């Protein structure tokens, strides 16, 4: 997925100070650079394919240089056509010399009103989405009491129906049928809906339903960290399920291990209720309460007492 300078301008409501004809340029590196050392004359490791951010430090230093040195360094700084853009933060306005060299070198100069650190944090976060590893998952994803749960299982096992019931119980839909999983960092996978599917759920026999219109703004969520995978499996005799809840199943998505449980389903069982309790139990474990372990400890003690 490509991100262009234009996308960044729109996202962060940046002002174009120069070079609006080059805003279709693609951003090829997710890192940012503050060119303070380069302005001081050190171009050895200048990462010219990155977005360059000018804060108060850079601009103040620049104004301390004599005219010729300033021009020379700016020319060097603006020389690489691969540099996507140069962004002034804090609403800083470059002087006429700066803009003159920018025009000469056809550099795109933008301006943000945000403070440097804040802006860079937001921009890195935004760019990370485009460069982070991603994959498609099949299933329904919801936010159940703060736990991002992906419901998977063979088609017609009742995933969407369970999701609908969960929505009516007050939980939030992230995406139905297809989920884009983005690994923001190893160990942190976030799920979101493809644009087209946002807020939509397909219910067999009813059709495609807009959850946002039908159940309100509280029934949907744009994105959510994936913490638990619930696989719905046909209740088959002979298949062994975890009766105590001690065994830990994991599924690896990209490079992240996600907790997984197998939920046996059969007609008449309230799947939504079961998924809800699985999510709550996961949450409970997150705060250090493992009911299964607690029970096992009790049992061990009791057996010892009976020996």
């Amino acid at each position: 997925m490509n991100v262009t300078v234009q996308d960044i301008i729109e996202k962060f409501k940046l002002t174009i100070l120069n070079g609006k004809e080059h805003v279709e340029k693609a951003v090829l590196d997710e890192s940012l650079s503050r060119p303070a050392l380069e302005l001081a004359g050190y171009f050895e490791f200048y990462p010219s394919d990155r977005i360059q951010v000018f804060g108060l430090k850079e601009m103040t230093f620049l104004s301390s240089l004599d005219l010729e040195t300033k021009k020379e360094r700016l020319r060097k700084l603006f020389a690489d056509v691969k540099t996507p853009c140069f962004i002034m933060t804090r609403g800083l306005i470059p002087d006429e010399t700066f803009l003159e060299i920018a025009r000469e070198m056809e550099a795109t100069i933008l301006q943000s009103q945000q403070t440097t650190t804040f802006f860079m944090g937001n921009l890195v976060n935004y760019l990370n989405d485009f460069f982070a590893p991603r994959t498609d998952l099949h299933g329904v994803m919801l936010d159940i009491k703060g736990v991002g749960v992906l419901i998977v299982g063979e088609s017609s096992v009742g995933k969407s129906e369970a999701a609908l019931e969960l929505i009516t119980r007050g939980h939030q839909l992230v995406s139905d049928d297809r989920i884009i999983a983005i690994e923001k960092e190893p160990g942190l996978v976030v799920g979101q809906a493809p644009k087209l599917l946002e807020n939509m759920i397909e219910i067999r026999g009813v059709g495609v339903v807009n959850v946002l219109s039908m159940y309100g703004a509280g029934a949907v969520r744009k994105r959510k960290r994936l913490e638990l995978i619930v696989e719905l499996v046909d209740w088959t005799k002979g298949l062994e399920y975890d009766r105590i809840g001690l065994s830990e199943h994991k599924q690896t998505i990209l490079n992240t291990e996600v907790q997984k449980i197998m939920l046996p389903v059969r007609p008449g069982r309230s799947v939504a209720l079961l998924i809800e309790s699985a999510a709550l139990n996961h949450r409970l474990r997150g705060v250090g309460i493992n009911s299964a372990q607690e029970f096992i400890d009790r049992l061990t003690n009791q057996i010892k007492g009976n020996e």
Partner: protein
Amino acid sequence: MAQVTITITDPSGIHARPATVLVNAAGQYTSDLKLEYNGNQVNLKSIMGVMSLAVPTGADVTIIAEGDDAEAAIAGIASVMKDQGLAQ
């Protein structure tokens, strides 16, 4: 009705794993199955009940079956218990 008394040899007694084995084995039969230990009787098809007995190793338990496949159930469960190292 059929019944059998078995000595538990699993070093941890009827702990969570052995209880799961027992309950899964019992679930294969239609007969009414009970597990008796120390004068207390529980449904052998219900795991929480089975574990609630907290049967230690070396203890004698009785399995009681009532129904069409009672004999088969007793034989089957006893053999599973031996195979799984629960009893001798």
